[in-house]
């Protein structure tokens, strides 16, 4: 068979060839897509998140003291429940952004408690900012105004939630530092930290 006839044959493949191509493509598609999503899910496990000591020794320890880790009903929110969006496209964007975190892991930017504390305000503000931008989307995966019964809430909660709802506030505006320690508040709210402004 010379080259000319081979090209001719490829230009008009038999239906059997077309069919097997289609099947092979379909199967490969399932394998790759499934494999991709499985790998993606693997990076969405708490064990993966606390694989680096920056997380494990700092924020993870603080989280273990909070209601999102242990509570009366036994429902637990793990790292990705709050920090990775559920909608696919936003999830991909967040995963790509996470490569920056890998870079700083390699650089050792926050690899000691001192370095971590130094950066805590900035890191916290990054999370606060992104949650404000998305109207606390990840919080609302579980805590939705629509399914919140104010009658069942405590006095303090009813008052604050009513005002928040009226003013169009988002969860993170008030609920800061609920799963991790707050940063030093000198710059954020000097009235809630020891010492006079400018410490």
């Amino acid at each position, binding site marked *: 068979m010379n080259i000319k006839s081979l090209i001719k044959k490829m230009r008009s493949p038999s239906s059997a060839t077309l069919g097997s191509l289609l099947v092979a493509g379909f199967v490969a598609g399932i394998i790759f897509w499934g494999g991709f999503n499985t790998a993606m899910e693997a990076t969405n496990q708490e064990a993966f998140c606390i694989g680096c000591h920056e997380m494990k020794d700092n924020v993870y320890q603080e989280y273990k003291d909070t209601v999102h880790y242990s509570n009366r009903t036994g429902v637990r929110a793990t790292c990705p429940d709050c920090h990775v969006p559920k909608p696919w496209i936003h999830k991909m964007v967040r995963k790509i952004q996470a490569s920056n975190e890998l870079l700083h892991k390699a650089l050792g930017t926050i690899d000691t408690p001192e370095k971590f504390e130094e950066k805590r305000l900035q890191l916290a503000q990054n999370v606060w900012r992104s949650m404000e931008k998305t109207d606390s989307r990840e919080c609302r995966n579980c805590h939705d105004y629509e399914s919140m019964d104010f009658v069942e809430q*405590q*006095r*303090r909660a009813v008052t604050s939630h009513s005002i928040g709802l009226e003013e169009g506030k988002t969860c993170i505006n008030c609920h800061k530092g609920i799963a991790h320690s707050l940063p030093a*508040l000198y710059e954020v709210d000097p009235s809630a*930290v020891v010492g006079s402004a400018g410490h």
Partner: protein
Amino acid sequence: MKYSILAGLVLVGSSIFTSTITLAEEVKSLRGSTDIEAASNAVEIKKNINDKGPITRDYVQQPPLIPHKIKGYKINLKFNKCLTCHSWANYQKSGATKVSLTHFSGRDGEALSNVSPRRYFCTQCHVPQADVKPLVENSFKSVPTIK
């Protein structure tokens, strides 16, 4: 006569002895009557009162009581969770009681612009409450001028 005095002494002595025994039986340690070798029964954990209005003071100098739960509220060098609602900058927005002016002076009475470090650790004086029966009877009555 002699015999009756002796009998009286014996009677008094024995009654003292028995009363000492009953007294010893009445005294219970915090472990209750659990044998020293056995594991003691866990004490029931008291629940804090959550979310009431301000609790009336019982005497003028009493630090006001905390009428809500404070579980997980941290007070450290970096932040004071209580002050995120009770500070002068935040109390109006949060609807909380504001920190008393007395907390804004140093140990020599000098005026400060923020809560004094010696008044910073709220829970040294202010405590949450649990609605429980007092362990011992108490006939304390608060002064009528503040009730």
